[in-house]
């Protein structure tokens, strides 16, 4: 007796093991570089043009946010455990929220990606090759936008927003300075140095984040447009299904 055939996946999606059907766009940069604003504007623009878009930001997943929060609160984390916990969080988030829409043929926009871990963990003294190898499971983005901003601007925007600067965010665990703000500034300088190191090796598209919002917006759109030539829109997918 012949076994019933497994139904084929819909057209425009990725069968297991082949190149991902969707597009992966990543926004990276220091806090206060304007990357989140631009990422959201791009989402709106693409949606308005009829693309299926999925937006995700890397702050925390359901899985281990409690542990990270608890560890941070009690300052229990070392650079290695900090790095591994964030990698766990990233893997979980990637498998739940990034890979499925990519296979389904969405444009996935990530506010922060593995590069955030590369720079943050390197700034904490972890071996950069080791950190990169941890993230070996992450698909390579179609485009990475790096929002370059002077540390002073990042700091000024952070302070103006009146958000509380956390212990780890300021890199206080490294003891770079006793004062929180001074430490934050020093740690951000380290992060910036690490980002700059990745510009040539990872082919970042550098965005001068000091420019006006509209100028940046147009630059981002110009970079994204060619990636979407012939890329199916939501309607087309619906029609193909009928």
């Amino acid at each position, binding site marked *: 007796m012949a076994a019933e055939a497994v139904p084929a996946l819909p057209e425009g999606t990725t069968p297991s093991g082949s190149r991902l059907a969707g597009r992966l766009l990543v926004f990276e940069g220091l806090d206060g570089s304007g990357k989140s604003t631009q990422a959201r504007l791009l989402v709106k623009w693409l949606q308005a043009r009829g693309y299926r878009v999925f937006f995700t930001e890397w702050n925390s997943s359901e899985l281990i946010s409690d542990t990270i929060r608890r560890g941070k609160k009690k300052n229990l984390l*070392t650079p290695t455990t900090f790095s591994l916990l964030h990698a766990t969080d990233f893997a*979980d988030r990637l498998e739940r929220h990034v890979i499925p829409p990519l296979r389904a043929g969405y444009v996935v926009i990530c506010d922060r990606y593995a590069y955030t871990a590369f720079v943050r963990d390197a700034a904490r003294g972890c071996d950069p090759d080791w950190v990169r190898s941890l993230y070996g499971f992450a698909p390579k983005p179609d485009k990475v936008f790096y929002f370059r901003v002077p540390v002073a601007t990042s700091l000024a925007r952070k302070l103006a927003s009146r958000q509380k600067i956390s212990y780890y965010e300021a890199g206080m665990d490294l003891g770079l300075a006793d004062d929180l703000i001074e430490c934050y500034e020093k740690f951000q300088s380290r992060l910036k140095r690490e980002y700059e190191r990745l510009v040539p090796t990872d082919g970042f598209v550098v965005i001068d984040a000091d420019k006006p919002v509209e100028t940046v917006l147009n630059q981002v759109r110009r970079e994204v447009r060619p990636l979407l030539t012939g890329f199916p829109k939501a309607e087309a997918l619906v029609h193909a299904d009928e």
Partner: protein
Amino acid sequence: MPTNRTYGTKLPGMPRDPFPGKLIVLEGADGSGRTTEVDLLREWLEVEGHPVVDTGLRRSSLLSEQIEEAKKGNTLSATTLALLYAADFADQLENKIIPSLSAGSTVLADRYVYTLMARAIVRGASRSWAEKLYGFALVPDLTIFLDAKTDILLHRAIAKYGSLDYWESGMDLCLSRDRFESFYRYQSLLRAEFGVMENRYGFHRVDANRTPTGVHRETRDLVAPLFHPEGRRRR
């Protein structure tokens, strides 16, 4: 061999000098008599005058609850689970194993990264990825692999618990819906993986298809030279 060597990357802030303490690892499946042997070795070493700290997997205060929760839900992928276990292991390494070795204690590890690697690999993780991931692990002074045949493990598990554990049967791998068959296949896969690692990492294989007394006599002979390097044995 100094005990502050790792397989790959060094941990930030690792001491440069060799540790005065010894790291002894016991590996082997559930039912291989591993825990019994850890207890016997500990007793013997303490009688000989060596302070002993024992450690195992999933005992860190940072994550053990989290791992139990994650296992209950059973929705994590091989990658996520391997990273979660690595975080837990790193926490124990930095907060328990290294301080104990620095203080001159003998650390008896009831399972080590090899188990974590084998579990990840049989679940589809690539060997090179798993090796790099756990590259921060210290190279033990001695690793003893208690090797028991899968059918012996099976009988011991049934005799001890009256049933086969979901995870020890590798039910999450979907090898078979039948737990008996799944246990057999999963444990055979793990054993094969340990066979590969045996040469790669220089395990000392001890035949664990025997009674605890026979196993203990052999492991003691392996451990003794670490403390009496000139071959001088106290009576």
